[in-house]
C-alpha cells in the first residue's frame, strides 16, 4: 500500500476521511472528482436531515441469524455486535437508524454481481437494521463474515467486514462505513481500509473483542462505537488549514 497515487480532494477532516482518488483502489480512478470541493457556510439545509424522521423497523431486523424468514438459522460463528453512536462531543445519538450488510460466513454476498464460487447460505440474507436506544446504543446478532476475493489486483481479498449506514441527527452526520475485526492479516493488504489516511483513524474502524459481551453457550461479543458529526455549525477542520 506504500506506492499509490493519493489525490488531495477530501471531504471533511483530512486526518480522518479518505481522499476521493486513491489509485490502489482502482474504482476510484474514474469516479473521483478532480476539481476542488466548494467551501460553503452550513445552513438549515445541512443542519437538518432525514435521520429523526425515519426509523420504521421490526425487532427481528436486528437478528441476521434468523431474519431470512426461512425458519432456519444462518451458518457461522454467531456474534453480537454492539456499541454506541456518539457525536464528536461524546453526546449519544438516540433513536437513529442503522442499516448493515455483510457477506456470509464463507465470504459470499447474496447479490447477483457476486459470482465467485463461495457457497450461498439459504438462511442468511446478510442485511439488518436497528435503531439506537435512548442512550445511543445499537445491537445486532449476526455471524462473523468471511473474507472474500475481488478483482482489484491479483489475489486481492477483502478483510472480513460489516458495512454500516448511519443517519444521525443531520445531513452532516450521514455516514456509510465499514467495521473490521481485530487482528486480521488482510488489513495491511487492503486498499479500501488503507484509503483512510491515518493509523488513528483506521483503528477507529476496528471492533474490539469484549468478553463481557460474550454470552455463554451462545455468541462472541464485539464492541464498536461510531462517532458522527453532530449538528454543530462548526466548520470541518480542513477549512482551518486554508484549503481552497
Amino acid at each position: 500500500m506504500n506506492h499509490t497515487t493519493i489525490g488531495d480532494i477530501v471531504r471533511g477532516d483530512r486526518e480522518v476521511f479518505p481522499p476521493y482518488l486513491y489509485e490502489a483502489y482502482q474504482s476510484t480512478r474514474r469516479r473521483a472528482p478532480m476539481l476542488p470541493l466548494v467551501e460553503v457556510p452550513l445552513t438549515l439545509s445541512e443542519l437538518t436531515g432525514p435521520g429523526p424522521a425515519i426509523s420504521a423497523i421490526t425487532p427481528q431486523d436486528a437478528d441476521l441469524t434468523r431474519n431470512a424468514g426461512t425458519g432456519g438459522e444462518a451458518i457461522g460463528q454467531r456474534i453480537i455486535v454492539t456499541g454506541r453512536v456518539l457525536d464528536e462531543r461524546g453526546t449519544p445519538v438516540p433513536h437513529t437508524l442503522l442499516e448493515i450488510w455483510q457477506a456470509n460466513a464463507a465470504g459470499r454476498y447474496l447479490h447477483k454481481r457476486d459470482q465467485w464460487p463461495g457457497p450461498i447460505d439459504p438462511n442468511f440474507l446478510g442485511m439488518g437494521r436497528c435503531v439506537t436506544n435512548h442512550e445511543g446504543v445499537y445491537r445486532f446478532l449476526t455471524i462473523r463474515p468471511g473474507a472474500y476475493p475481488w478483482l482489484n489486483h491479483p489475489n486481492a481479498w477483502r478483510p472480513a467486514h460489516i458495512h454500516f449506514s448511519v443517519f444521525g441527527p443531520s445531513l452532516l452526520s450521514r455516514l456509510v462505513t465499514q467495521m473490521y475485526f481485530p487482528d486480521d492479516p488482510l488489513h495491511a493488504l487492503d486498499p479500501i481500509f488503507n484509503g483512510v489516511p491515518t493509523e488513528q483513524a483506521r483503528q477507529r474502524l476496528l471492533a474490539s473483542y469484549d468478553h463481557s459481551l460474550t454470552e455463554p453457550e451462545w455468541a462472541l461479543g464485539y464492541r464498536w462505537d461510531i462517532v458522527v458529526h453532530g449538528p454543530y455549525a462548526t466548520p470541518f477542520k480542513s477549512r482551518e488549514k486554508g484549503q481552497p
Partner: protein
Amino acid sequence: MNKLLLTSSQTVGPFFAPALLREDAVRNVLVQPETVGERVRIEGRVLDGDRLPVPDGLVEIWQANAHGRYHHPADSGPATLDPSFVGFGRSGTENEGLYWFETIKPGPVPFDHERWQTPHICVTVFARGLLNHLVTRLYFAGEPANARDPILLSVPEHRRATLLAARQQKGTSVVYLFDIILQGEGETAFFNV
C-alpha cells in the same frame, strides 16, 4: 474541549442494494396524494470520468416541503409542516446510471436572519469507488431567486450551470433533468460539507 475522533468513511461497495434498496428502504416516491406542492419528477444519470453510466450507485435527496419547512426538529418554522411529506428520497442507479424521484418543488428556506435560499434539493451520492460520499445541490433552472442565492453564488461562476436542473414538460408532467458527473468535463460542483 477534547473532541472524539470521527469515524471515517468507507465505500458503499457494489453489494448494498439488497439492504439499502429493499422494498421498504428505497424511496423514489416522496409524495402522497395529499402532499401540498407542485409535482415534479427529478431524474438524471450518474456518469463517471469516461462518461459511462454508474450502474451501482445510490442517490439520496433531502428537501424542504412546498412551504419551505424541513421535517426536522431544528426547523422551528414559521413555515407550515406538511404531515404527508418527509422530504427524504433514496434511489439506486441500476438502470443505465439512471436515478429518479417523484417529489414536489420545495419552497425557499432561510439562509440567515435576513436572507433566503432559493429552492434547492440536497443531493448525496454513494458508489463503489467513492471512499467518501459526495455532497451537492440541485437548483431549479429559471428560478429568479437563483441569481442572489448565497450558496449558489459561492460556486465558481463557470461551474454553477452544473447545479441547475433543466425543466422539461413531458405530457402533463414536469421533469427536471439533473445529471451528476463525477469527474472530467462538466464535473458537477461538489461541496465540502
